């Protein structure tokens, strides 16, 4: 392992003449030209989604609810859904009217009249009427209707009116249930019809307000913090010890280095599953070992008790990343000239004193960089916990990323999930700012 020796860059001679100025200009535009593709990609695929997440987090966005599956800021109607249901609802009502008599018949006719009224109200707008007819035609011949064509913006009053009429229809038909032949048909069509009204699902910062007063969110933050602080601290201490111990010439360095790299290189999800096997309450060898040395009372405690699960997760993480930490620190150690230690030894400094006065100060920036990367990695932990405990038992290992994932993909609540992911983002930003403050601009400087 060679230390990274930065070359002494000979600065290009300042351009003074006109031709050289021209060359410099072309160099500059070439520079921008070369970085453009990467910058565009990074902007579109990484930066835009973060802003979009924030945007989504202000909406009541639910993928399993057709009316809320997108972010809407205004009222509109989905004519596709509308025309898929409205004519059939009218037909069904017609049939029922034919069968019914007396009060029921009157009530059904009244319902129909109300629906017709709102339908004609809807078609008053010329632009909407045009779309209405186009969609109707396409549906007749069973052609696909594009999203653009299907959704038409609505006046707030008409939209609310439509929603109210349709909801009332559902209720009124339900009340007549005993009298009708096929009440479920009419109720079904009517409630599908109500899905055609799209109301704005903008809710501002409500998700944040709710989450910040939600015990589960704070529990997840505290779990994440506990996991991050403990695992990174242990990794640093053990990693530093290993780095110092193996920072010498010995036989079999290649083997040791490969050993160090393997836990790092294996997919986290796969190693998590491997640990799940080793921790297993009945057949896990590591669980058995911990039980026999008295660390846990019962083998099953490891994955089924709150403290046991947190311990298991941290232990698996330490196993996976301590070697990586040791590697980073070892590279830093190798840049410290041995002459410093020789001089210190001649002056009679003890090993401990040498560590405090030479190793630590000179290793400071390596330690901070390693800590920065590890802290951020640990804070966004997902794979390990998802596979090993799934956040359980009783949410005791549920980290903020796991919670956000569950809200988004298990509850299909993308609005709230996005709010949680923005919270993760803000936490990560704060952590990096703190580190960068300590590191200064070292990390980025040009030389």
């Amino acid at each position, binding site marked *: 392992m060679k230390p990274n020796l930065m070359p002494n860059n000979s600065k290009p001679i300042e351009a003074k003449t006109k031709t050289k100025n021209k060359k410099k200009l072309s160099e*500059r535009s070439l520079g921008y030209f070369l*970085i453009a*593709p990467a910058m565009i990609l990074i902007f579109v695929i*990484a930066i835009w989604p973060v802003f979009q997440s924030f945007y989504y987090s202000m909406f009541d966005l639910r993928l399993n609810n057709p009316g809320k599956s997108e972010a809407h800021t205004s009222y509109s109607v989905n004519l596709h859904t509308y025309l898929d249901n409205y004519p059939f609802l009218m037909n069904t009502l017609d049939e029922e009217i034919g069968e019914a008599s007396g009060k029921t018949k009157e009530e059904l006719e009244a319902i129909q009249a109300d629906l017709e009224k709102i339908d004609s109200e809807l078609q008053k707008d010329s632009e909407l009427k045009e779309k209405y007819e186009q969609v109707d035609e396409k549906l007749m011949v069973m052609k696909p209707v594009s999203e653009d064509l299907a959704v038409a913006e609505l006046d707030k009053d008409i939209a609310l009116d439509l929603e109210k009429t349709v909801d009332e229809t559902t209720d009124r038909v339900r009340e007549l249930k005993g009298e009708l032949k096929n009440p479920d048909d009419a109720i079904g069509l009517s409630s599908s019809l109500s899905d055609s009204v799209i109301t704005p699902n903008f809710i501002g910062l409500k998700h944040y307000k709710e989450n910040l007063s939600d015990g589960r969110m704070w529990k997840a933050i505290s779990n994440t913090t506990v996991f991050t602080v403990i695992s990174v601290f242990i990794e640093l201490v053990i990693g530093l010890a290993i780095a110092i111990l193996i*920072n010498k010439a010995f036989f079999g360095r290649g083997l040791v280095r490969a050993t160090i790299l393997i836990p790092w290189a294996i997919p986290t999800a796969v190693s998590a599953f491997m640990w799940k096997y080793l921790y297993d309450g009945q057949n896990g060898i590591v669980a058995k070992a911990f039980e026999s040395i008295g660390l846990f009372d019962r083998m099953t405690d490891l994955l089924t008790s709150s403290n046991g699960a947190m311990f298991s997760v941290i232990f698996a993480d330490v196993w996976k990343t301590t070697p990586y930490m040791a590697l980073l620190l070892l590279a830093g150690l190798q840049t410290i000239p041995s002459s410093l230690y020789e001089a210190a030894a001649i002056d009679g400094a003890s090993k401990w004193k040498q560590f405090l006065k030479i190793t630590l100060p000179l290793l400071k920036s390596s330690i901070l960089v390693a800590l920065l990367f590890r802290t951020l990695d640990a804070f966004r932990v997902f*794979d390990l916990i998802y596979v090993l405990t799934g956040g359980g038992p009783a949410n005791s290992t549920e980290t903020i990323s796991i919670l956000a994932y569950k809200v988004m993909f298990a509850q299909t609540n993308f609005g709230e999930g996005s709010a949680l992911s923005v919270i993760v983002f803000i936490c990560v930003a704060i952590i990096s700012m703190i580190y960068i403050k300590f590191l200064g601009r070292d990390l980025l400087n040009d030389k």
Partner: protein
Amino acid sequence: MNKKAGPMFYVFLALFVFLVMFPFLWVLASSIKPVAELFGDRAFIPFTDNMTLENYESVFVNYPFLKYLWNSLVVSTITTVYAVLVASFAAYAIARLKFKGKTFILGLVLSVSMFPQIATISPIYIVLKNLGLTNSYLGLIIPYTTFTLPLSIWLLVTFFRKIPFDLEEAAKMDGASLMQTYWRVILPLAIPGIFTTAILVFISAWNEFLFALTINTDDAYKTVPVGIAMFEGQFTIPWGEVTAATVIVTVPLVIMVLAFQRKIVSGLTSGAVKE
């Protein structure tokens, strides 16, 4: 600290190597046991008298494991090639050319590499779903850019900076254009660095879990990490198959790590160590 290593040191070293490797060794031992010996009393005996490969067979016969491996290979390879290619232009510009805003751009690249994946997943998922790209290779290659591109740029910049500037100056003196300098002088010297970057990017794409888990839910497009994580049966976990699959995934990685350890270490520590 170039002291000679004593015998105690080797004892410590052996212990360390054993502890790190123990989970793998145990899983390897378990994978060749008959399923019945994975449970009960025999579960804690590392050796078996009835060595069998039935777990390995089952992984390929009862699970679409070969498909998972292929999917991972396709996605990781394409991601690596395209990310490293795009990054090499940007990194060359940042490391060698003079223009304003370089520090800012490098800072931006570094911050993007620290973005938590969960913060970008909801819009990416919705866009890919609307484009019909979920359950496709492209559906993973596109989002993988979020971490592979910053990683590639960051590593390549450090490698490009190590190439002596004198060579470039000499090429310029001889009248070579910037592109000629890049192709004829810089690139050949940067090949080892590019190769190292490619290894690290490949590993990071190969190991990715969250995007793969959410975007490609269809067995036909699952990658290895997700595939193995989903081995869980409805009531019991098929430990025999899990251990065998783990060994199958680990062995190529061990070979790769043994072959390229120097390069991987230089890549991992570059940028992290400053003079």
